[in-house]
């Protein structure tokens, strides 16, 4: 048992820290710190900087241009990046599609699409969820019918994150309507500029535009955009869901968030003293800090297992549940800390509103973020789904 980093890991940490200090644009970091919406250009700029350093595709094998980092290295990067207010890497091309293409795509597909992910030619989004299907992917209805060299796609996807910036979408579509639930599904790459694709914004409850509906009406997709075999899409989707399951706890984000809460609470007045000295507020902060500290160790344990080749199973679900609870609690503390200044409303979706919002504690839109991050326990397999998985596996004697 040893909780400290090895000399190599420490050296890597120093390298990452130096890179962030040197190369992370300050205007972008400030936006991240204040939770101001990043523009497409901001995100592309940061991807290019990372790609230039060879650190964009952190989990890809080197043969595809990846950094091929270990789980511990990725953890170190995540922690340092969150601390430095670096934007997160947009995961759809890099963490999700990339590994699927590397495992199941044809040589042609790999040669064509992977470099375009790295150099930013394509912006990918994910077409999994459908209205009414909730977390139950197997019941999806979007149809793709083979017609010569093409599929004709009809249907609707929803909760498509950053779809407004994307030119490509990877979709699960039903290719065999007679097959049982999870069979008859295929994995299709669709150019969003094809006629019949329409993106409609969904404004979230905090006024932000993060997610979209994507509608398909007689959209023609070349058959070479099918990944792997027809009707085997469920296998690829599952691979994607079980792959890349470290980091689900969002330890780095929570650590950065807690740091911000403490800073705000040191500045905020409460009965003539800094709020952080108020024992009730301090108790809340301390308890979530203690929870987070334990979860960080749980996270490292899982990473260490992953490094040893064990696939994280239940532990990933556990981390996702506990991680979302902790992050949401930190969001709650932040909104409490600013007091009445939690009420003013900043949103890109309300024209010009961003400029005029008073923020004497330099906290950013903490109440908006509180509401926005309710998504953490809903999207990507709700906490109820995760609890169901944990119970099912454990009770059947699996753990």
């Amino acid at each position, binding site marked *: 048992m040893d909780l400290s980093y090895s000399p190599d890991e420490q050296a890597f940490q120093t390298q990452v820290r130096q890179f962030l200090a040197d190369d992370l644009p300050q205007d972008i970091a400030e936006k991240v710190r204040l939770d101001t919406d990043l523009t497409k250009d901001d995100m592309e700029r940061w991807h290019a900087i990372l790609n230039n350093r060879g650190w964009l595709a952190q989990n890809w094998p080197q043969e595809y241009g990846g950094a091929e980092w270990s789980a511990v290295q990725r953890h170190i990067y995540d922690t340092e990046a969150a601390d430095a207010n670096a934007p997160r890497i947009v995961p759809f091309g890099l963490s999700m599609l990339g590994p699927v293409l590397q495992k199941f795509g044809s040589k042609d597909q790999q040669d064509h699409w992977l470099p375009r992910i790295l150099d930013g030619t394509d912006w990918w989004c994910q077409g999994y969820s459908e209205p009414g299907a909730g977390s139950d992917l197997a019941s999806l209805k979007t149809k793709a019918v083979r017609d010569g060299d093409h599929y004709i796609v009809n249907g609707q996807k929803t909760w498509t994150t950053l779809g407004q910036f994307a030119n490509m979408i990877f979709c699960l579509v039903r290719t065999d309507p007679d097959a049982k639930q999870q069979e008859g599904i295929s994995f299709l790459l669709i150019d969003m500029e094809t006629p019949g694709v329409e993106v409609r914004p969904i404004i979230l409850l905090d006024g932000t535009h993060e997610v979209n509906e994507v509608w398909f009406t007689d959209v023609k997709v070349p058959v070479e955009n099918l990944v792997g075999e027809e009707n085997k899409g469920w296998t690829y989707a599952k691979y994607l869901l079980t792959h890349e399951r470290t980091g689900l706890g969002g330890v780095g984000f929570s650590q950065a968030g807690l740091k911000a809460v403490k800073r705000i609470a040191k500045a905020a007045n409460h009965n003539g003293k800094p709020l952080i000295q108020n024992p009730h507020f301090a108790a809340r902060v301390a308890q979530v800090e203690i929870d987070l500290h334990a979860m960080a160790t749980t996270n490292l344990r899982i990473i260490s297992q992953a490094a040893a080749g064990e696939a994280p199973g239940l532990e990933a679900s556990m981390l996702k549940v506990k991680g979302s609870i902790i992050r949401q609690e930190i969001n709650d503390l932040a909104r409490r800390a600013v007091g009445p200044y939690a009420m*003013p409303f900043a949103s890109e979706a309300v024209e010009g509103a961003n400029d005029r919002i*008073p923020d004497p504690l330099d906290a950013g839109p903490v109440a908006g973020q509180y509401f926005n991050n309710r998504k953490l326990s809903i999207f990507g397999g709700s906490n109820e789904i995760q609890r169901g998985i944990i119970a099912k596996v454990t009770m059947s004697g699996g753990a």
Partner: protein
Amino acid sequence: MDFNLTEERQMLQDTLRRYLREQYGTARRNDILASDTGFSADIWAELADLGVLGALFTEDMGGFGGAGFDIAVVFEELGRAGVVEPILDSALLGGRLLAAAGKTDFVEQVIGGALHLAVAHGEPDGRYDLDHVNTTATDGKLTGRKAVVMNAEAADHMIVSAKDGDTIALYLVDKGAQGLDIQGYPLLAGGRAAEVTLDNTPGDPLGLTLEDYEAANRLALIAQCAEALGAMETATALTKDYLMTRKQFGRPIGTFQALAHRMSDLLIELEQARSAVINAAGYIEDKHADMHLSASKNLIGRIGRLVAEEAIQMHGGIAMTQEYELAHIAKRIVMADHRFGDTDYHLERFIALSAA
């Protein structure tokens, strides 16, 4: 002991609930939310016509109510419908302060819906502390900054607290007065507020002190608790409906035990919240009124968070979208915690007052 509403209050409740159900649906409110002023003059006038504003004042003041339970009845219904018009600040808090100052002509206009007020008391680093006032009054000229002043832009007059020597006193400042600067902005849960700067701005002394402000603030606390309760009732009802409508694996998700049990806990806490509002309104004349009010505001804050979060969680994705009714209601509930002292503030005050 009697837990029934009087006939008058029952009628007021029925009328207001019916009016809001018919006239204040999600679409109408979304239009209001998106408007420049952040509130509807028509709704305001109609509420005045219905007697809703008059119910906030005693007969002495020219109204026909004014007791704790009158206020609770009105604001529970406003909360249930997610009303964003600043009745709490403009009519109740502002109006009752002017009534305390004996400005009967003004109060008459407030009741009639013609006069809009704002109350500028809190300051940027004052958070929830009632006695934190750095704005100064010198020879009737006010100088200082006031924070998150509700309805400041639309107000015909503003009631401003300032320190004249060691004493906190209240002043009436006219719209457009010299040296008065109003920087408005929208609010997350609807409506608008402003940062207000006064620079040697003339103010008319109202003859009111911090104690008078505290008295009006007690009524505001009842109103805020009741409004949050009404919003929680809507959140709970929406969730109940959703759980019985939405199906998974061929049955309503509300029949799954985990959600059913959590729904039960919400209903239990809703009863607790209802009792908290009854206590707030019922003990307003008690010598321990402040202790009861802090107890209620603390409990409403705790239950409010639970209800808002659980309602969203049990809905899932749909509740994350701005256009769904619950989104607005949940924001009203949570933002209620940021007014007149939050959960922790009132916990601390309760401890101090109950130890005394």
